[in-house]
């Protein structure tokens, strides 16, 4: 954390090296989070790219109160939520546009997702309502407390806890169902 403080400081002082270090240090965490949260994993790299791009432009106004990792993960979660919402709207827009969506997607080789485990989890997570998925992932993978997630989503802690419980139950039944097949 001490290292992060210095990196942020140097970044705010204008150091591009510090920016590169921050990217290298946290890109994987962000990619993993985005990959599980997004309905379409091919959007993962775009989201992470956008998060860092916005971060790079924010040196002057950046006022970090928590730790850097949480901040970047929160940005990723917010963007993932927006992207999913946009994708849902596009998907309901009609078949004519579906082809555009497909051709806009990233080619698989641009993103190294070699892990079958990720695909399996991504599929399982994709069956959860997004609100539940986000709470489960932010709590378990990003290490965020319920209180922090509640603040991020602008709802009560009890609602967050409820979503977490329902999400876990549903996930359990999905995974158990898979095992029984």
């Amino acid at each position, binding site marked *: 954390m001490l290292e992060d403080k210095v990196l942020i400081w140097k970044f705010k002082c204008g150091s591009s090296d510090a920016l590169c270090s921050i990217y290298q240090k946290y890109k994987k965490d962000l990619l993993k989070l985005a990959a599980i949260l997004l309905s379409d994993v091919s959007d993962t790299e775009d989201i992470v*790219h956008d998060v860092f791009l916005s971060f790079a432009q924010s040196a002057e106004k950046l006022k970090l109160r928590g730790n850097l990792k949480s901040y970047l993960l929160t940005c990723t979660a917010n963007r993932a939520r927006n992207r999913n919402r946009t994708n849902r709207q596009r998907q309901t827009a009609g078949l004519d546009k579906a082809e555009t969506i497909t051709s806009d997607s990233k080619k698989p080789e641009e993103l190294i997702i070699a892990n079958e485990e990720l695909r399996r989890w991504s599929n399982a997570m994709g069956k959860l309502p997004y609100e539940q998925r986000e709470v489960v992932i932010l709590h378990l993978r990003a290490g965020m407390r319920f209180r922090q997630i509640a603040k991020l989503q602008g709802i009560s802690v009890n609602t967050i806890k409820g979503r977490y419980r329902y999400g876990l139950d549903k996930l359990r039944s999905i995974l158990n169902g898979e095992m029984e097949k």
Partner: protein
Amino acid sequence: MKSAENIEKLIKNLDLDIDTNEKTDQKILKELIEAHEKSKKMKSVSIEPNIRSKIMKSPITKLAAAVIIVGVVLSFTIWNKTTPTAYALEQTIQASHSVRYLRIKGFNEGMEEQKEFWLEFDEQGSIKNIRAHMPEWESPSDGARVVIWREGKAKIWFKKKNTLLTIKEKRFADKISETVQLFDPKFAFQRFSEMEKSGLVKIDIEEPQKETEAIIVTATYSPECKEFGVPVDRTILFIDQATKLLTSLESYLLIENGDYELIDVVEFHDYNKRIDPAVFMLDELPSDVIEIDQTIQDIGLEQGNLSDEDIAVKVVREFYEALIAKDYVKAGLLYGGVPVATMEERFKDLKIIRIISIGEPKPHPTPGVGGFMVPCKLEIEKDGIKSVYEPYGPGIRPVRSQPNRWSIHGGVK
């Protein structure tokens, strides 16, 4: 069957093999750097002076002021035994007693170059030797400086002016010593005990579970602290768990919406790592450096019973009279002790016929310089043609190392 606990564990430990390739990284990093550079260019040039003015205007440096806060924090805990944590700042004070060598770096908002100090303490814990690198932004008119303090003498190398100034003065030595002692927790708590007793600071101590992480001490000051010369609103100290020594110190200002904005960072390095004695020597000076040794001669004029304004006018008058008489020895002494050869070289082409007038001294317009600017008009001759010449200054102020004496420090030509 998977239980909810198992699911939690599975998700937590899920090792996702996902990454970007090197080519993509290069592409993204290039874009990030471009965006970052662009945002830097858009940053208003007025921000930096603004930040600087926010920091402080008192003679004590910001770095030193930041360390005052260490003192406040440390002093607080000395008397406040109610802090319900295993760690207590007395441990840091205790650990600091054995420090013989220390290196300090200071980073300021918006400034690429850092301040850097090398310190050596004697066996009693008193300052023995200091080397300080002060960047140009700290004093734009003087430029970057290297300061060496040893055996009661300070040598200041003004790189831009190619000048080495040697001074020996108790007040200056005391000030350096005092400044540096502020870094030193074992002295600091005494100085600030009064503030602590008044309850002007709130301390939070956060001890991480991991041994590798720093203990974080947050000191938040009440608004009244500003009156006591504390120029910041919050300080966060990072303390090494193993050694209990201070590793870093951050200073914050309270801004709108109750947020705190980081304004500088001081890092403490190389505790007790022996510093080569050569570090405390100035052996990198250029061969043509102008040496002004104020320890071996009287500089300027003695003030006597004259007012500050009157002595300023007198110094200016005698300086130009000396130049008219081509008395470069006297002119040099009035000009801070500049050597005769340098004076002659600088002023031999300036033929002053007479002093037309010397105006009323005005406080020097540059913050922190001190003393006066004394407007004057001179009649000069160049290539047989006479004209009226008004120097930018001259600037007059007390000689730092010689009490009750005043001299010129610039703006004479």
